[in-house]
């Protein structure tokens, strides 16, 4: 099945992808279907398509990122777009006016697609209101990281054949994690059961209202789950502020074979990367080729981002925007 065959079945009537919130199950499903075709294409010798031919894609990263930015870059290039990376040192950028100034500057360059990461929750949505092109949220603060949730869903669906009815444990720093929020939203929308496993200090208030089951004991939290999704714990949050120490965290919440034994025998291990081995995940577990799909997630990332860029480009106006457009 090629991308062209699925294009008629694509349901994605959105101008931007700012979050998972608000997406319908069939929209997510059809994005994943499209992404599946790109997985196949990316495994061919000729990976190039021309659906974004003539389009300009700007990756605007206010936060440092290697893998997400290169994944967006590769996705755009494989679809034939002209891709430019703008890494903005976070220290030189202030909120509010300056962000809008940046938007005005970008508008003048007439991009078609803008992939943005920003350290503040809501900043990508703010930018999206001020530019004339399609915007993909590449992660905003502790709010959402929709392409990560989509690539996780694609990884799971390809391995397990479905999302519905699976039990997924998301473990670690839920409080600061945009990955957790997007995944909770997506998995709930698709009919999976979501658990969060963390000490009380790393859970945001009212998280149970997002439709998750809370566990503070990792062994109980992992009992009979299909998927173990680990999150990265920033080192600066670990020395007595949110948790007492690295060794206590690893002892109680680090994924090792002993805790993993509680999960289903065929449970998959996922991690958005970059991993802190010996902090949230044992090296042995991370490298277990039978269980860990961590490298597969990276592959799915490119395919999912191609699907997202492709889908959004279909909703772009085909007539050129005149000077002063995109107010």
């Amino acid at each position: 099945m090629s991308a062209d065959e699925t294009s008629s079945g694509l349901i994605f009537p959105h101008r931007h992808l700012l979050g998972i919130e608000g997406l319908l199950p069939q929209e997510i499903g059809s994005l994943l279907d499209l992404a599946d075709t790109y997985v196949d294409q990316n495994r061919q010798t000729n990976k190039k398509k021309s659906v974004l031919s003539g389009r300009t894609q700007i990756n605007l990263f206010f936060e440092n990122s290697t893998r997400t930015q290169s994944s967006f870059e590769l996705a755009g290039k494989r679809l034939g777009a002209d891709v430019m990376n703008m890494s903005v040192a976070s220290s030189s950028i202030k909120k509010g006016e300056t962000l809008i100034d940046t938007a005005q500057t970008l508008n003048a360059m007439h991009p078609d697609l803008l992939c943005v990461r920003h350290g503040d929750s809501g900043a990508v949505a703010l930018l999206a209101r001020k530019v004339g092109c399609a915007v993909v949220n590449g992660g905003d603060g502790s709010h959402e990281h929709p392409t990560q949730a989509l690539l996780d869903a694609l990884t799971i669906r390809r391995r397990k054949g479905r999302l519905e009815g699976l039990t997924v444990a998301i473990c670690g720093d839920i409080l600061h994690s945009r990955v957790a929020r997007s995944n909770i939203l997506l998995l709930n929308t698709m009919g999976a059961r979501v658990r969060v496993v963390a000490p009380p200090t790393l859970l945001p208030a009212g998280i149970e209202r997002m439709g998750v089951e809370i566990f503070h004991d990792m062994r109980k939290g992992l009992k009979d789950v299909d998927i173990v999704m680990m999150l990265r714990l920033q080192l600066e949050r670990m020395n007595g502020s949110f948790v007492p120490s690295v060794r206590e965290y690893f002892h109680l919440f680090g994924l090792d074979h002993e805790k993993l034994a509680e999960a289903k025998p065929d449970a998959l291990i996922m991690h958005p990367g970059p991993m802190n081995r010996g902090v949230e995940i044992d090296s042995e577990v991370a490298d277990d080729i039978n269980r860990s799909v961590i490298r597969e997630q990276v592959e799915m990332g490119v395919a999912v981002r191609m699907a997202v860029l492709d889908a959004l480009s279909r909703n772009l106006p085909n007539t050129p925007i005149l000077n002063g457009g995109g107010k």
Partner: protein
Amino acid sequence: MSRTAFLNARLLDPASGLDEKGALLVEDGKIADLGPRLFNDGVPEGVESVDCGGHVLSPGLIDMHVYTGEPGNEHRETLGSATQAAAAGGVTTIIVMPNTSPVIDDVALVDFIKRRARDTGLVNVHPMAALTKDLKGEQMSEMGLLKEAGAVAFTDADRPLTDARLMRRAMAYSTYLNTLIVNHAAEPSLTEGGVMNEGELASRLGLSGIHRLAETMMIERDLRIVEMTGARYHVPQVSTAESVEIIRKAKRRGLKVTCGASACHLTLNENDVGNYLTFCKLDPPLRAEDDRRAVVEGVADGTVDVIVSAHDPQDAETKRLPFAQSAFGAVGLETLLPAALSLVHNGDLTLGQALGALTFQPADLLDLEAGRLAAGRPADLTLIDMNVPWVLDRYKLKSKSKNSPYDERRLQGRVLRTLVNGKTVYVPDED
């Protein structure tokens, strides 16, 4: 198998309300049986027997607030000398505070305390561990690992944790470990420089006062955080009438709050400071008589859960100084029981109330097996002569430090025998 029968005893178990004549059998360090009819037909052969002479046989006392000098200040008190003092006072379990040098904030130090206590101690010793690293009030300690190693609760000892954000996180973190958070209730900006209760007496003596507000304010703040996090929280020593009332109300609201009072605060008041007596310089300070009475009533109605010695050995170097410059604290392991009994003798407390706050109530707070007269429990026992009068001579104290506010006072009631895990660890010297 070693078996010992304790005959002709007044069996007193505050947890079950048992108070009747009977016998008790100890088998291999555990209580095997007890009751009014046990051994009515005589003691079987091979069982050693001890005649209790009709005296009170109680679960051994549990003192959840003891400072020692080990490690770091062994000249004031070692774990060995503290446990000797405990045994002489009928105390079979002591909980030691973490403000040693180095601070008990690491698994290795919990192991050290347990090993030293096992090798040199006469009674059970459990450490509380530091709530924050190095007691600095900046980063929470490894509560999970420390609890697994054997820490029974978490506290910064005599240092209050003032940072509200850290207290919130520490309490939240403690909930899933189900550990007890103990915070010395004293707002430092209000206690700074103070040396005794603020009031007329301090004014007459020309000493700077510590207002009751320093205590009540900290308790009220902490209770707000308890309400939000659902943590188990304990005020180690209450000293004011209002503190007791605040905790009484909080308990009624269903908060998991408990508190203790020291034997000194239950039996002495600010007037005992008298002529600048540094042995009566305590933290929290001895308060007014109304406060003392209210704290006693708190024990009687169950608001105050535990009575502690707050045993704090200080030597001449730290106590033989002008009042303002001297250290806070008093030794108390050997006077804990007679001080508590004085409240029974004058009718303020029943024997069950007094001993309850010294046995099963602290045991329940700290999840200890001891503290009850029941089959299968450890044979930690104290045989008490309720009535014998005596005068305290501080130089006869087993504790290495002699800073007792009860020096030369008349006391009533004494320990006749102390057993830990079925083994006699104390009988009085022949006078």
